[in-house]
């Protein structure tokens, strides 16, 4: 497989936990640390959505996190890709009938890639981010930019 053109630049990722159980969150950190080491591809966690290309979102959206998630999405500059990590963020999963859960992420903001698993394995998370790269590439092409 040829590397997508977007690999010319480093992807910066912002991680948001909207009510997750920490399972996917620790697997995201595991993906960044030496065993899986996504930093060798230039993928790096950033401290603010304003610097991010990709939003990695874990967990179902709880009511208090709803306005925060919308705001984080708005703060992320275009072009951006949204990756949902884990079954509960994709479909609400086991948290399907709670009074404090609004629903899966795609009911709140548009989602580009769904990573399955409860929790998702680091390999699956890396695969999800690679798919987001392809998505960003098409977005950039359609805007006529590099």
């Amino acid at each position, binding site marked *: 497989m040829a590397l997508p053109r977007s690999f010319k630049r480093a992807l910066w990722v912002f991680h948001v936990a909207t009510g997750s159980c920490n399972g996917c969150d620790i697997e995201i950190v595991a993906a960044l*640390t030496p*065993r899986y080491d996504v930093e060798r591809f230039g993928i790096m966690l950033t401290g603010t959505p304003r610097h991010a290309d990709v939003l990695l979102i874990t967990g179902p959206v709880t009511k208090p996190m709803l306005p925060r998630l919308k705001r984080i999405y708005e703060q992320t500059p275009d072009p951006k890709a949204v990756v949902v990590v884990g079954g509960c963020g994709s479909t609400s999963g086991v948290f399907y009938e709670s009074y404090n859960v609004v629903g899966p992420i795609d009911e709140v903001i548009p989602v580009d890639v769904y990573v399955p698993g409860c929790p998702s394995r680091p390999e699956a998370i890396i695969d999800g981010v690679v798919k987001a790269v392809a998505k960003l590439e098409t977005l950039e092409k359609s805007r006529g930019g590099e």
Partner: protein
Amino acid sequence: MNNDSINLKVGQCAATTYTVPVGPVHPALKEPIRFSFDLDGERIVGVDIKPGFAHRGIEYMGMKRNLIQALYLSERICGICSISHPLAFTQAVENAAGIEVPPRAQYIRTIIGELERVHSHLLWAGVGAHELGFDTLLHLTWNVREKSMDLLEELTGNRVDYAIPIFSGVRRDVPAEKAHLAYEALDYYKSLLQQMIDAFLHDKSVEMRTRDVGALTYDQAIELCAVGPTARASGVKKDVRQDMPYLAYADMDIRAITPADFGTEPRGDVYDNIIVRLLEVQQSIGIIEYCLENLPSGELMSIPKVPALLAALKKASGEGIGRHEAPRGEVIHYVRLAEGVEELAVWKVKAPTYSNLMAWVPKFLGDEIADVPIIAASIDPCMCCMDRVHLADAAGNKTTRMKEELVRLSREKTRRICG
């Protein structure tokens, strides 16, 4: 303007404290929680904590599902303590229904529980190093941690959420042919432990950033009912495995680990928290070794057929409590079963972070704003375990919130109608 008024202004400025909000989404926090710090210069003089962002209403959901479904839900209270909650929950239900657990199953539960402590404490140590800005140590620690994840995957089939305990026993065996993998991992940790202790405890920069930072005295720890390593770092010899032995712990001589075991006087600061957690990794290795060597033979479940198990649980009635020393401290599950109903009548969970939350206040007070990340991390907080909703607010407060909510709803409707 005369001199007097200038002096007055200077005086006012000096007395002003500033409020700095941190969270709910903040680079120093891995999970959503909101802190509000009152600062006098760089010093923290007041702190307010607002949890509740990760509350998913698990107890409520669990009471609407049958017990085995609720067991899977209990596993997803927290992805890091993903065996601590099921261990406490199964014990509570077995206690209420009067179900016996075969000895082999008790030992297997203990092995997985202790492996979880190894990975959780190493995870914490790495996060702690990251909060200090020492990312090399984060990567080193997490690389070492992967060995325990490999072993957990080998024994249970999953890196996280192991699905091992079930009411009346365990779902998977630790077969003899896999024991050598476990011994190999234990030898790996034994050979690396001294290196980890050197990297954390004999490192000048770690010591400078953590000694006397975020201190919790012995009396404060007792007064605030701190649990787990947070309490033990302050010298409180408190450990469920020691105080009320359960599972295989009753067959061993387990003592609560305090900084005194490292030869230092307990001060309850972040450095002491590191000592306790690293020494507990060593303790867990010993426990796993004992369990592997003395693994009793016999069945895995006293009621092996799931339909029979569900029927037995449906017939049962009564109350039960399950306690487990999770990596972060004592976790308690309380259940009440009603006869003829598949669901739980009552389910109450008390996660360790809930007890340790108030310990944050004395830990923060008097320290600098730059120490916030490491002090916040020092109790190893787990919001997803403990978050709950608060309805007991002052009446006036509630109406204002309602009003805001109504205004927001009204505006949204206008937008929707006008397109």
